[in-house]
C-alpha cells in the first residue's frame, strides 16, 4: 500500500510542484495589486499585506492548488481508469481476486491526501512571496513593514482552515475522478467523456465545498 501511495505521489504531488509554485507566485502578485489598487484612494496600500496573509492562507492557497490539481490530475485519473475499463484491465484485476478500489483508488486517494495539503502549504508561502515582490519591489514599500503586517494578520487558525480545506478537496477530487473513471461502460469512446465529466464535477464540487466551509467557519466562534 505504501509503495502504491509513493508511486502515485510522484505524479500527483511532485509533478505538480513547479506548476503550483509558478501559479502561486503570480496569484500573490496579482492579489496584492488588486487590493492595493482598491486601497490607493485612501493612501492605505500598505494594508494590502494584511489582506494577502489571511486571504492567501484561507482561500487562494487551497483553491488555486485544488483547481490546478483538478485540471492536471482529475482528468488524468478518470481517463486512466476509464481506459483501464475499456481495455478490460479492471475486469482482469477483479478476475485475479483484487478489489480495484483498494488496488487503484486507495493509493491515489492517499497520495492526494498527502499532496494537496503539502502543495497548499507551498502555495501559501509562494503567494506571500509573490505579494512581497509586488509590495516591496514594484510598489516600493519596506520589506520589514510587509513582514510586520503579515505577522500581525496571519494566525495559525488561518493556516488550519486552509489546510483543512485542502484535505476536503483531496477527498473530493480523488473520489469524484475515480468514480467517473470506474463507472464508465467498456468503450474507448467513453474515456474522453469520463475525463471531461471528472473535471467539471470536481471543479463544481471544490467550489461548492469551499462555499460550505466558508459559511460554516463564519458561524463558528474562534475560526473567523
Amino acid at each position, binding site marked *: 500500500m505504501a509503495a502504491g501511495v509513493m508511486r502515485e505521489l510522484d505524479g500527483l504531488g511532485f509533478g505538480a510542484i513547479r506548476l503550483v509554485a509558478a501559479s502561486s507566485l503570480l496569484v500573490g502578485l496579482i492579489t496584492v495589486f488588486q487590493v492595493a489598487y482598491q486601497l490607493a484612494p485612501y493612501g492605505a496600500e500598505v494594508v494590502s499585506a494584511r489582506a494577502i496573509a489571511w486571504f492567501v492562507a484561507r482561500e487562494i492557497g487551497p483553491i488555486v492548488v485544488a483547481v490546478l490539481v483538478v485540471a492536471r490530475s482529475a482528468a488524468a485519473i478518470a481517463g486512466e481508469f476509464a*481506459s483501464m475499463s475499456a481495455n478490460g*484491465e479492471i475486469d482482469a484485476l*477483479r*478476475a*485475479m*481476486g*483484487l478489489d480495484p478500489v483498494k488496488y487503484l483508488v486507495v493509493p491515489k486517494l492517499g497520495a492526494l491526501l498527502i499532496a494537496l495539503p503539502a502543495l497548499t502549504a507551498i502555495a501559501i508561502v509562494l503567494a506571500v512571496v509573490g505579494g512581497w515582490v509586488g509590495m516591496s519591489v514594484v510598489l516600493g514599500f519596506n520589506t520589514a513593514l510587509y513582514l510586520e503586517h503579515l505577522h500581525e494578520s496571519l494566525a495559525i487558525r488561518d493556516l488550519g482552515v486552509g489546510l483543512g480545506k485542502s484535505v476536503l478537496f483531496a477527498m473530493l477530487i480523488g473520489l469524484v475522478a475515480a468514480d467517473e473513471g470506474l463507472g464508465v461502460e467498456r468503450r474507448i469512446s467513453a474515456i474522453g467523456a469520463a475525463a471531461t465529466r471528472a473535471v467539471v464535477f470536481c471543479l463544481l464540487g471544490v467550489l461548492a465545498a469551499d462555499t460550505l466551509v466558508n459559511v460554516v467557519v463564519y458561524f463558528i466562534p474562534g475560526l473567523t
Partner: protein
Amino acid sequence: MSPALQGTVGGTTPEDFVLEVADLTGPAGVPVVRHVSLAVGRGRTHVVLGAMHSGKSLLLRLILGLERSRHGSITIDGVAFDAARPNEDELRRIRRGVGVVFESSALVSRLTLVENVELPVVEHTAVAAADARDMATQLLREVGVLGDLERTPDRLSRLDRRRTALARALVLKPSLLLVDEPGHGLDADAAAELDDTLLGLQERYGCAALICSQELRYAFRLPHAVSVLARGTVVDHGDLDHLRHSRHDVVRRLVDRRGVA
C-alpha cells in the same frame, strides 16, 4: 449435473469436476446466455465453440461473476455459489484459484511485464518480493517472452501480450484456467505457437482449462469435451467423436465450413 454431461467428460465423478456450471442464465437484465450447463474435469480441457456473438465471452464473465447472472449456480473447485447473488468476498477468494486469459490479454498497462505477472503473487501470498519476481521472470521465460521484462505492455507484440497474460494466469498454479479466444488476432504460426505453449504448461501445471473460441481447431486439438454454443444456448455437447458425427445444424455448419470430415 445431468448424467449426460457427466458422461461427456471422460467418466469423471462429480467430485473430480473443477468447474460445474448449472442452468446459467444471464446477464441479469437481458439474458444473452440461457440455461447453460457444463462441467470441466480436473486436469481436463473443455472447449466452448461458437460463432461471434454466440455468448462465449459473456459465459466466461458470468462464470467469474464479472457480470451478474439472472439465475444458475457455479461450483469452482468444490465451492458452490449462486451466480445471481454471489457473496463478493467469497467470489474474490474463489477467483484466486482461477487463472484467466482474456481475449484482449488485459494486462495492466501501468505495470511492466514482470510486475503484471508477479501481481497475484505479491497480493495474495506471503512470498518475499524478490522470490515473487524470480517466479514471474522464470514463468515469462517459460511462456517464451524474450528480451527486457521491464517493458510496459504497450511495447509488446500481440503474441507476447498473450504469452504474458498466460504467465499471469498460471503464476498461482490455479486448478482452473479460463481462456477466451486464445488465437484472436494472431497469424497461424503465432497461434499454433501459443497453442503449444498453452498445452505444454497446462499439462505441466495439471490445471483444467475452459477455452472459448470460434476456431474449430481448438475443438480438434485440445479438448476432452466440447460444447457448441449458439445464441447463448448449448446446442450440442460431447466428446470429439460426437462432434464429428453430430447431426445438429449449427455443428454441421461449423464442421463443414472448415472441411473437417
